[in-house]
């Protein structure tokens, strides 16, 4: 965007950048892409943010294909190049999991690896200049294109709710339904009179976990993206003075957020396995 951007144009620019490409059923009964944020809202729950989902699945597939190709060629000999890099990540994940998860569960480490790399890649899309990919799609005739999946709450909540399902599943599996209920009912006050109060507190505590997990990632990435968009409103010759420092700082943020999402998932699942 250039210097002559007026106030309403800037807000339109920002809004445009924050609108997903949504596919769903229009109120008149036809199926198709929404042409504005309001139209997307009218589609209700049964609509898909094609851009978020597309980028998210695309990045996930890239991650898995890359790691799979390394894994199928992995040898015990001296690791070189890509294998070295992948092993470094795997080793890092493995030690993190071993630090906080003490039971044996073959799911946890691959889950943590998937979360870390996938979330990192989704966050990484934030570092691509904000107008780059949307502009390409604009030339191809696609109206809206939001390229950072983790700035879409559907994506982050989709993952955190999956983690929540795992928490419930392993809580019941490890402690039994009765044991799990006991844990909820008898903490923090061990007295029959306090059971309703305990249940209220503990269920709130339980439900807060996935919400805070998903919203933390979403909030951080959304705010970061917003600042990139605001910087993009500045005159072109000065943008670099803000976008470069922010991008460098953001490298830290995206890694940290991916790491936090992974560690919290491990910790929640460790808590689900261990009675306290």
């Amino acid at each position: 965007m250039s210097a002559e951007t007026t106030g309403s144009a800037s807000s339109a620019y920002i809004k445009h950048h924050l609108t997903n490409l949504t596919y769903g059923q229009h109120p008149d009964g036809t199926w198709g892409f929404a042409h504005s944020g309001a139209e997307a809202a009218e589609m209700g729950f049964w609509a898909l943010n094609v851009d978020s989902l597309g980028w998210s699945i695309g990045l996930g597939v890239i991650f898995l294909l890359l790691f799979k190709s390394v894994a199928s060629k992995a040898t015990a000999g001296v690791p070189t190049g890509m294998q070295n890099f992948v092993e470094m990540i795997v080793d890092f994940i493995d030690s993190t999991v071993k630090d906080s998860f003490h039971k044996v569960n073959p799911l946890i480490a691959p889950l943590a690896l998937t979360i870390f790399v996938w979330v990192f890649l989704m966050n990484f899309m934030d570092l691509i200049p904000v107008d780059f990919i949307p502009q390409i799609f604009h030339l191809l005739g696609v109206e809206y294109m939001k390229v950072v999946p983790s700035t879409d709450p559907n994506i982050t909540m989709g993952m955190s709710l999956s983690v929540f399902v795992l928490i419930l599943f392993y809580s019941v599996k490890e402690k039994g339904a009765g044991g799990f209920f006991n844990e909820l009912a008898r903490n923090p006050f061990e007295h029959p009179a306090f059971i309703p109060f305990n249940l209220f507190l503990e269920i709130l505590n339980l439900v807060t976990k996935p919400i805070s997990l998903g919203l933390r990632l979403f909030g951080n990435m959304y705010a970061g993206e917003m600042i990139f968009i605001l910087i993009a409103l500045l005159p072109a010759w000065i943008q670099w003075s803000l976008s470069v420092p922010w991008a460098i700082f953001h490298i830290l943020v995206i890694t940290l957020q991916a790491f936090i999402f992974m560690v919290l998932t491990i910790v929640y699942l460790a808590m689900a396995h261990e009675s306290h």
Partner: protein
Amino acid sequence: MNINATLIGQAISFTIFVWFCMKYVWPPLTAAMQERQQQMSEGLQNAEKAQAELDLAKAEVENQLKEAKQQSASLIDQANKRGNQIVEEAKDIAIKEGERLKQAAQADIEQEVNSAKEALRQQVAVLAIAGAEKILASSVDQNAHSEMLNNLAAEL
């Protein structure tokens, strides 16, 4: 920013990706890494063993060197002794030979002296007879005195 079915779509893809990762990505990678770790620890153990063997071999070499030195020293000693012995023996033989030669020479000399004495005795008898003849002239009976003179010559 609407909550919609994207959430479910993401949850489904998440499940599939985690399953794929658990099945095809994680196990071969960790297996390779563990195998390498084992190989490395084996390698280190082997190195330690080799070091111990080397130390042992060094000690053995030192022992053998010491033994060899001792052996050579004793050999030199023996050789020296034997040499001295040979010299002594040679001296003894030389002395004995000298003695023998000296005795032989003395025997020769004695024989010479005896034969010279015999010859002189003969000559003295002849001279004595000739002198006595001259002194006594013809008064002396050659036959009567020759026995006496012979006895005299034998006494000389």
